[in-house]
């Protein structure tokens, strides 16, 4: 019965998620125990008591999630498409594009990096691709508009390091 359940990619994905969170709880508990005091002379409870209590509760809850996934109801899975790679392609591409553009900000400045972001996002990640001229106009208008808005609020967005 359990092996049948484990064949379901959603159950497997959910199990991995719960196991990672359980390990995180153990890690937090370990760090708290090794670095913080549980009791304190003036405040009764030390700074470590509360985070330790929370990590123990989280660990138990994660174990319960794993138990429910293996022996309980199908409802415990409660997930739709975690392993649907085709559906995940665009969100992950958007995230990676954001990371690359933020990393390039010292070199290109806010305006340069976000212009590149907007143009690539509209070219490759939007469902309905606009003509080239409109993508360029939209990208320039978005970046220019946001830059102007923040400038008006006396906030200076990052400039390239060479300027």
């Amino acid at each position: 019965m359990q092996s049948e359940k484990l064949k379901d990619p959603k159950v497997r994905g959910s199990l991995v998620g719960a196991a990672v969170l359980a390990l995180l709880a153990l890690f937090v508990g370990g760090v708290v125990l090794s670095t913080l005091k549980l009791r304190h002379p003036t405040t009764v409870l030390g700074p470590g008591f509360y985070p330790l209590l929370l990590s123990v509760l989280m660990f138990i809850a994660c174990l319960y999630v794993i138990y429910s996934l293996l022996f309980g109801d199908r409802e415990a899975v409660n997930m739709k498409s975690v392993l649907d790679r085709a559906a995940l392609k665009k969100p992950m591409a958007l995230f990676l594009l954001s990371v690359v553009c933020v990393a390039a900000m010292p070199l290109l400045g806010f305006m340069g990096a976000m212009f590149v972001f907007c143009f690539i996002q509209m070219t490759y990640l939007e469902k309905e691709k606009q003509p080239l001229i409109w993508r360029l106009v939209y990208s320039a208008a978005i970046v220019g508009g946001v830059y102007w808005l923040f400038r008006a609020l006396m906030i200076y967005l990052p400039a390239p390091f060479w300027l």
Partner: protein
Amino acid sequence: MEVFTHLLEGLQGIMNAPSLLYCLVGVTLGTFIGALPGMGSSAGIAILLPIAFSLDPKNALIMFCGIFYGTMYGGTITSVLLNIPGESSSVLSAFEGFKLAKKGRGGVALGIAAIGSFIAGTLGVIALTFFAPELANKALLFGPAEKFAVIALAFAFVSSLSSGPMSKSFVSLCLGLIAATVGQDILVGDSRLTFGTTFLTEGFEFAPVCIGFFALTEIMSSMEDKGPIEEISLSQLGRIIPSAREMKESILPMTRGTIVGFITGVMPGAGATIATFLSYGIEKKFSKHPEEFGEGSMDAIASTESANNASSAGSMVPLMALAIPGSATTAILLSGFLMFGLTPGPMLFVQHPDIAWGLIASMYVSNVMLVTMNIVGIPFFVWAVKKSTPFMSALVVTITVAGVYSINQYMRDVWLMLICGLVGFILTKLGYSLVSILLGLVLGRLAEYSFRSALIISDGSFATFFEKPICLVLLIICGIMLVAPPIWNEIKKKKRPKQPA
């Protein structure tokens, strides 16, 4: 009588050009954000949080409340015309409204929804006007033990009422509470879970986490391919103003929706989605035309849209009276209050009555603006949503990057937002509740402070939580909230006939 005097003073305080303008900007933005598929009030307010930092606190909060209300109205537009719920609370409006639109009654459905939202929103704010200050007065008498019990009750509500299994919601809550402990200890000052970095000494900056979780996660989710969209053109809308007979038939569903919505909204964690589903179920039992449910029912639209709006007024009660947010949007609103150095709750009505009452008064004004805008401006919002769709994701990401950077002028905040966006996306996919994480993060420090302060006062005796009657009652309810759902599920499972293998 005192309430009316305060309310009039609040109204007087916002009857000036800047306040009314921010109210108008808020409701317009809110309607637009609500109409955008995949965007909700939480994302809308989160994105604007850094920008609003440079505004006058009262006007900024009025704008945020306008956005909150506006999204409730706006969500109906795309639900009825495009069959895409702008928010999860509009799912049933899409289910019933789109079918009505196909029958050529989409305009009336939008009109009924707008009027129902107005009636429910206004009645909800009237109830808020009387409940919130009264509750706040009672809360002034609360000590640390009672405060901890109230927060624990909010956590129990959030864990047991949020969508998905309770165990996952509880894990999310613990994650948020652990994240809130990062930084300096509130009583002793020791560094906790900072791993020797100065970046984490002050704890997690709230805005980047919040924007990452709600704005970026929503944009990433909206990128997923959801297949072709079937839509109704504006020419198929028909008339928007309902006839006298249609209005008469909708009054009772609106009233029932308002009552259910407000009560559900007051409960932390229940929120607008549960309110709409509850009111839908109740309406189906009371309606004169239950056979129309699922085929395009005007009663369902009137009831669910009223419940939706009344719940937003209800959710402001625990926020304004006890500083306890019950939903993602009110949690972000709480952070907006804190950003301006204001603490909602009992002291807000005492120390900043102009802001507390101004905010309540602005909700009446918002509702008037919204009903006018949503009856007259539906074609405009549909046009604006269609025109902006090709560049909306790019615009939102650009604003969030600029907004998060602007808070402290540090790129590390932008990185934190990106990481939270990815983590939020993965956790959502795995069925964990971001609302629970956010509530844990927002209320974690207050919960710990109240818990430890109560123990200092009682000299380390845990009995202090069970000696005070209010505390005891709240903790018993808390226990029931946590234990009852699993037991109920077990009973249901046993009653279910076993299927042959």
